């Protein structure tokens, strides 16, 4: 993930990896369409769709009006009747406008209809802070959707997974919500060629360790890896788990790790209270792994405020590498 790549391996950025996945899907499956605001000639607000419209045309790469609720609903209706839409929200924040279609319709219709339909819908949400775009363009709302049965929710942290999870989402008959971190779009990493899938519902152990389990999501995985490297100097051997999927959560991988290390830190960018780390923590605290815990379960989540504009304040509002370092030292040394 961090410069793990060998010279002979092809590298792509996270955005390019997503684009490649969409290109493969558009090429292989005529029922796939892309929908979203300014994803055509503009190439998407973050240039993720890029020039796909030139190759696949405006019928397959559809610019929608600025109508998030309606657009999401059109995607739901299309998914119910033979298409496989990949719907891009321009910023994840705007999903607040479409919660009704995502939650009351897409997530529930299969259940409400007793299983007679499926909704093969993929939604992409550029998420997170760090771009100086302030409170209405920087949220992490994966916890909302993670709370909703009927949805699957993933947060790729690497270019490889970004492609693999998107292709897996397209093979999934149910709605899959993909939270992509905007800061990761430009990150490069090895991405295998062609079609492959990364399993939805499986966490990845990014670093083996025995002293403390750091369970992180999205961009925080990289901060956790940096912290783990530095912790080595302290003689602390951290295990870093990339959660990858918020729903369904990979209980086994997390619990096994905690049984081994006896200590856990959850690191996530969303607001701490009722964020993803609350579930990770509670899942461990109610399991048999509880008996292996030697210390409280630490959560490092976003500050209890909207994301501020000032760049230094913006950093102060989400967990940073030194916070992880400090927490790991504390929890290992019994200081909490």
């Amino acid at each position: 993930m961090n410069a793990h790549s060998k010279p002979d391996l092809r590298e792509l950025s996270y955005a390019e990896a997503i684009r490649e996945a969409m290109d493969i899907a558009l090429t292989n499956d005529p029922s796939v369409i892309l929908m979203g605001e300014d994803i055509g000639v503009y190439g998407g607000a973050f240039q993720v769709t890029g020039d796909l419209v030139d190759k696949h045309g405006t019928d397959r790469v559809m610019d929608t009006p600025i109508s998030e609720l309606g657009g999401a609903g059109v995607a739901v209706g299309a998914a119910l009747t033979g298409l496989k839409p990949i719907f891009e929200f321009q910023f994840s924040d705007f999903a607040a406008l479409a919660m009704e279609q995502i939650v009351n319709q897409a997530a529930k219709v299969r259940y409400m209809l007793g299983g007679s339909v499926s909704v093969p819908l993929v939604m992409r949400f550029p998420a997170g802070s760090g771009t100086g775009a302030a409170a209405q363009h920087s949220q992490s709302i994966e916890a909302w959707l993670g709370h909703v049965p009927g949805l699957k929710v993933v947060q790729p942290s690497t270019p490889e997974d970004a492609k693999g999870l998107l292709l897996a989402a397209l093979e999934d008959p149910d709605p899959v919500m993909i939270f992509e971190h905007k800061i990761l779009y430009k990150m490069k990493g090895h991405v295998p060629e062609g079609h492959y899938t990364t399993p939805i519902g499986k966490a990845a152990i990014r670093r083996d360790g025995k002293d403390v389990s750091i369970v992180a999501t999205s961009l925080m995985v990289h901060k956790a890896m940096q912290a783990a490297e530095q912790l080595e100097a302290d003689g602390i051997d951290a295990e870093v788990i990339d959660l990858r999927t918020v729903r369904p959560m990979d209980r086994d991988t997390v619990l096994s790790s905690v049984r081994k290390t006896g200590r856990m830190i959850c690191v996530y960018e969303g607001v701490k209270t009722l964020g993803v780390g609350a579930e990770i923590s509670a899942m461990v605290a109610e399991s048999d792994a509880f008996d292996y815990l030697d210390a409280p379960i630490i959560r490092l989540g976003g500050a209890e405020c909207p994301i501020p504009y000032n760049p230094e304040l913006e950093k102060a509002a989400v967990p940073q590498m030194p916070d992880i370092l400090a927490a790991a030292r504390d929890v290992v040394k019994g200081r909490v």
Partner: protein
Amino acid sequence: MPDTIQDTNLPYAIRAYSPERLREALKKMYLVRKFEEGAEDSYMRGLIHGTMHLSIGQEASSIGSTMALTDEDKITSTHRGHGHCVGKGADLSKMFAEFFGKESGYCRGRGGSMHIADPSKGNLGANGIVGGGLPIAVGAALSAKRLGTGAVTVCFFGDGANNEGAFHEALNMAAVWKLPVVFVCENNKYGMSTSTERSTAVKNIAERAAAYNMPGVTVDGNDFSAVTEAVDAAVERARNGEGPSLVENLTYRWRGHSKSDRNRYRTKEEINEWMGRDPIPAMAKLLMDHQIVTEDDVAAIEAEANQIIADAIEFATQGEDPKMDEVTRDVYTPESAA
């Protein structure tokens, strides 16, 4: 789909549809009425829980608006959707079983009155969210256009729903993309207790069609022939690739909005006036006037409908209850459930 008799002095429905189709339509109107009366009765007797929204008085709108549709065509429906289901060919037994919360119901007892659907017949389902079906209908029309199926989608919604943002976004997209969808507004004067005068800045919902550059027409929604004439033209327009239309059927629900309604927002006189415009006898008269049925035929059709409903209630009563350990079944599609 409409047949073709060319005598333009005849009412549209008589020209457009065979006697068989017209008798079937009358029967469906009775079925909707009897289904809802049966549901109401079951509710009163404590056999059904939850709530229900009866469309008694609106049968010409629901049945008339679905005449031109095949099983490939789609509909999206509303909380007041029993008529739409029947129009789209639903099995009354499975509807009743769903009401009774049975495994043999359309939704295996998971959905109830507000979620009856029959995707195999192109019925994408009722919806508990006012306006929820509008963008979904546009999506179905998008599929039809992209996949070239030739299918048309009829999207039912109420006068109250026309003030939801989803209405605006859906109609705009349908128009911009010229999609094969017909928006059928069943204007029964009230969204729950709120009259269109108090909720809606225009007099007729169809006036709003101009904001989407699509044809909009208001018709007597209790006149079966007027409804079919307007909707069929819109369906044909959609089928020909000319884009969406808005049809407004003016009608009235005789019953309260739902079981909690005290009817304080309208007068007895108004209700009585509209009960005097019952669409079912009007349809029977139309068919009798044109020698398509006799009075005896009508009685026989009504009796047949009664029997179907009685059988449906029996079927529903006999149905099995869902298994309690299957409460989380069908949240995800099996191959993918984690």
